[in-house]
């Protein structure tokens, strides 16, 4: 595992920003980190970088402890903050040259190539750049390193759709040459498109973890029945489940079910239900996310 946390916790007085977070990120994966504001995503990333000292628990990157060996950790990590802010008096070129000097493994040529690809005018002073341009500039500095772990905290925030697509391509290319990426975002479609696996955070803890491939295999069945729902047969209990908290389940004649795997074992049973109408759709990340953050 490249990244590993064990009951990592951060408290500020009575407020718990990260609560006993245990997760692992294997090498070579694009790992999605999802959750609303205040879910603990940024706290987790800042703990990994050694910006914050953990209240308890441990975090390691490439077997280096994040709290006590922060320098070794940061030599293996490239980090794009949520809202990257750069030296406003410098031009884009000067910013890239600064980071190339700051980090021995950072290539100014590579940064310039990324800037060209994103259509960024690096001759402009940072103070005269739009928020999106500044975000692109920071991304150029981050992607110019050969760090084995790239942590991107909302990398596409403030970007136009073309630049967003380009950024996702850059992320996939970085992954293709062996880099591990932690991709924190609010944009579910991007995470679904780019990531191999996803963790959903809620109130400082990871509450769901699954590969995107597995999520795509699942289906959601929404049905209105002529009679009250009689329940799931015991034989099928491993294949299908009532969606907890789904609004439709409040009415006895409406039901929302989720099948984690293939629909094949369920088709016979579904045919026996007194169905008035039924919709079957792939679950997708949005439905999974809503289960934890919008009550299903």
């Amino acid at each position, binding site marked *: 595992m490249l990244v590993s946390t064990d009951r990592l916790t951060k408290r500020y007085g009575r407020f718990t920003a990260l609560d006993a977070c245990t997760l692992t990120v294997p090498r070579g994966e694009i790992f999605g980190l999802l959750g609303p504001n205040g879910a603990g995503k940024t706290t987790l990333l800042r703990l990994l970088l050694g*910006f914050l000292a953990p209240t308890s628990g441990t975090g390691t990157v490439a077997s280096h402890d994040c709290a006590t060996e922060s320098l*070794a950790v940061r030599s293996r990590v490239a980090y794009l*903050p949520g809202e990257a*802010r750069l030296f406003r008096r410098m031009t884009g070129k000067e910013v890239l040259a600064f980071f190339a*000097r700051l*980090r021995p493994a950072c290539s100014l040529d590579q940064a310039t190539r990324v800037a060209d690809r994103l259509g960024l005018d690096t001759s402009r002073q940072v103070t005269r750049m739009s928020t999106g341009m500044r975000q692109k500039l920071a991304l150029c500095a981050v992607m110019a390193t050969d760090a084995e772990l790239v942590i991107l905290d909302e990398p596409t925030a403030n970007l136009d759709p073309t630049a967003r697509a380009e950024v996702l391509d850059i992320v996939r290319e970085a992954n293709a040459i062996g880099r591990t990426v932690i991709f924190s975002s609010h944009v579910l479609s991007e995470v679904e498109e780019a990531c191999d696996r996803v963790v959903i955070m809620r109130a400082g803890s990871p509450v769901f973890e699954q590969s995107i491939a597995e999520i795509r295999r699942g289906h959601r069945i929404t049905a209105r029945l002529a009679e009250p729902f009689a329940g799931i047969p015991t034989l099928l209990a491993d294949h299908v489940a009532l969606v907890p908290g789904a609004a439709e389940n409040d009415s006895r004649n409406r039901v929302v079910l989720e099948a984690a795997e293939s629909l094949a074992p369920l088709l016979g049973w579904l045919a026996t239900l007194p169905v008035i109408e039924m919709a079957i759709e792939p679950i997708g990340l949005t439905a999974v996310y809503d289960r934890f953050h919008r009550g299903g």
Partner: protein
Amino acid sequence: MFNRAVWHQAWGDQKILLAAIVSLWAAFPWLYLWLQSQVPMGDFQMILKLIPEDWQKLSGVPIADVATPVGRVALAFVDPMIVLGATVWGVTRGSDIVSGPLERGTLEMVLAAPVRRTAVYATHAAATIIGGAIACGVLLASIWTAVAFGPWAGKVDPSLFTPAVLNVLGLMTCMAGLAGLVSAAGSHRSHAIGIMCGFYVVSLLAKLVGRMSDRFEAVGWLSVFNAFEPQRLVAGTAESWWLLARYDAILVGIGLSAFVAGAIIFARRDLPAPL
């Protein structure tokens, strides 16, 4: 210990302020001496005699010493142009070591690189001290040339003012170190500047109170300005240099100790996300 990229960045950040202080201090001695030369020595002595005796204590030197060409040049060092220039440099640059870039959000991209926090801190501190030394070098050069070629050419030995300039550098280091310490512990530069302004005012008042009243002499010793008396360092004797050594040991000692304490705090503290 130091980081080259941060060094360049620090100089980029401080070059405008340095240019402003250097320009001010390059021009000030010439202007000051010219203004002083407009008042004949006899008239100046008359003015001094009008100052109440209690107030004369505030000068820190016997009033008879002030009423000489050397004494009148020396008064330039306690002019607000010098004292405020030194304080502004120290507070402005010191407060920008941690809380400034932390508040602006530029610190986290820097610290995401494999750079020690202490290296970032020490590099900024060194750039601040060296910037202060350059400003003092310009001040010394300007005093020398103004004395050597100005209205009192030949009447005053320019070398007498070297200890006074070094005392100004001591004050700059002290203020920068204390501002750096406050900055290392906080997240808002404006707070660091506010605290240092309060410290400046309280220190100045403590010195004045200590000078004005024998009963409160002890209060005066609480002020760092007790070790900033450049007007007492222009006698040109060995004692001037000893006094300077004592003053600067206090000022530079406080400044460097504060820098070290600030570096330790910065290395251990949490860095919150910028607002």
